[in-house]
């Protein structure tokens, strides 16, 4: 095991520009509430520590953080619309180690843009089962000696580096995005799209041997919010202050976009700022319709 640069993330069949993961294997303990008759002190092996217990199905709820590429943005757009479908996720924190999840359902997705940075975001997901977990047994010496060139992904499917053909899509910079509310494009300094939905596992009492895998999975209602800060630079663009209800909105990221309808304002603030700050208006809209275009 060495340093973080040997790791990578793959979502579906696309490599992501991963910046971090958090996917713990959580053992759900089922504690008994019954009395246990333990002793206060001696003999020490009879001191009451804990109660009768057993363990349920392992939980793999986690999240991935990454900078958006065009491919990942396209994948996310499709996954939001097909929100009851699963995807494959592969996480490799180091050489020789990887864990794969083949039945993962997203429960949160975020996309954020702001001055001076790449568009970044995260996926929160619920995985039914971890298909594989291979922990590399090679020590530091073997890894350094045997794999000086790393995982060898860059020339084999990883997003093109070096800003290839100057497309600015791997990663996508903040300026290569735009937000349109109604028919007007607004000058947003920052914007953030949040999707969330409950992923519920249904367990059945139909097998007697060992903790059971979830029988069914369901996804609950989805909530979507679009928030951000914008400056009114040109009084003709937009032509009016944003209204409480907006019929349509389009968030463009590079040459791909996500369209929404039926937006309702949930909060807006126009505050005094410090002397050397810009004076944007902050707003948040609840989105009630996600379009397929």
């Amino acid at each position, binding site marked *: 095991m*060495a*340093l973080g*640069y040997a790791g990578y993330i793959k979502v579906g069949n696309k490599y992501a520009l991963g910046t971090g993961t958090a996917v713990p294997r959580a053992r759900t303990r089922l504690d008994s509430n019954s009395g246990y008759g333990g002793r206060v002190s001696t003999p020490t092996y009879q001191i009451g520590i804990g109660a009768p217990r057993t363990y349920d199905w392992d939980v793999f709820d986690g999240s991935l953080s990454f900078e958006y590429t065009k491919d990942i943005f396209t994948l996310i757009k499709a996954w939001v619309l097909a929100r009851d479908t699963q995807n494959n996720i592969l996480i490799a924190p180091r050489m020789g180690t990887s864990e794969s999840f083949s039945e993962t359902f997203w429960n949160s997705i975020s996309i954020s843009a702001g001055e001076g940075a790449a568009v970044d975001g995260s996926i929160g997901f619920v995985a039914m089962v971890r298909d594989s977990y291979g922990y590399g047994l090679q020590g*530091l*010496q073997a890894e*350094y*000696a045997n794999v*000086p*060139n*790393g995982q*060898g992904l*860059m*020339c084999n499917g990883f997003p093109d*580096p*070096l*800003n*290839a*053909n*100057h497309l600015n899509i791997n990663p996508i910079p903040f300026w290569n995005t735009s937000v349109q509310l109604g028919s007007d494009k607004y000058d947003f300094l920052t914007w953030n799209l949040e999707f969330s939905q409950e992923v519920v596992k249904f367990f059945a009492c139909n097998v007697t041997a060992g903790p059971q895998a979830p029988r069914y999975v369901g996804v609950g209602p989805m909530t979507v919010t679009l928030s951000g800060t914008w400056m009114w630079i040109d009084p003709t663009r937009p032509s009016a202050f944003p209204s409480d209800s907006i019929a349509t909105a389009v968030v463009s990221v590079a040459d791909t976009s996500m369209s929404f309808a039926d937006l309702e304002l949930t909060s807006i603030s126009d505050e005094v700022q410090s002397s050397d700050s810009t004076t944007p208006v902050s707003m948040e809209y609840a989105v009630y319709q996600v379009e397929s275009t």
Partner: protein
Amino acid sequence: MVVLATGASVNLVLEPIYSTAVWGAGWYNAAEAAHYADNALRYEGNIDVELQMGAAGGFWDFMSKFIVASRAYPRSLEISPDGSHVYSYLTTGAYNANYDTHGAWCKSANFSTSESSFVTCSFGVVAIFRTETDPAGGQNYSNYSYIQQAKGVIASDCTVLSVTNPLNPAVGNVDPIPFWKTNAQINVGTYDGEFGTASLPQVGLETVEWSVDVTNNEKILYTCSGSRLPRAVLMGPMDVSGNVTLYNPQGVFDPITGPAGTGTITSPYAYAQNTWFQVAITKPGGGVVYIEMPACVIMGDEYSITGMDNITNRAFTLKGMGGRCSTVTPTTVLPPCIISSYAGALPAAGS
């Protein structure tokens, strides 16, 4: 191998761990710290050299491996600040034989040159162990007193000194290497492979001065192991940057619009995929060695009024980028800085 060092300051770093606990002091005896414990220790500093190739290219080969190609591995290092004491940072076996915490690692390397100078390199080094000895092993330090050292330590042995190639043999001008011997060019176009053919952006372009800085961002792995000594020294992601100052009688090209004025901010002339920086130095007797950023992005551009009696050069600040695929099978990704072997080829990683 003896090198042409102009400075070496590799010193013990102690950094004790001070307790911040209170202990009932009064205004008269209140001290910021009263309790402390030893921290893990290391030796760290810089070695400044005039860049040379050395006998049979020995120093150049060492340098190319120490900085990049085999940066994960320590090398043996000896420094004698006064000709009597020798501080040794030695590996426990042959180079590459043992990956342990003995020897010295390259933290960084800063190459630079300019008019009327040699190419210089400042190596940042770090080590965990060192020993202090007298040069001949077992003799008293008094044997190396001022009076005793009429002929010095190194220069008293011509076989040792000869590896530094004194007296500019055959007028090779590579021990050390003067500024004019380097052919440093920023290139824009289709990359021709590592150490390949240059693709100059403009006719008449001259390089006035240049620098290349490699930072290895080493990580010393300290663990709760019951010992003051770290468990490993790891090499982090490489940070490579550089500067190149250019002159052209017709004016130096703009990195956005390019020499023909055809580029725009949305379609600039130079970007990382089509830009690289190469320093080529011809060896005595023929052949070339290289220091190269196989892909770089121009992250700074200074073209200023410089005063009445100064030449109006244009200075670019460069960021070396990873991600350029090698043209040599297997097509692995190149590091952001590559240094050729004395033979002019890409050294194998870990060689």
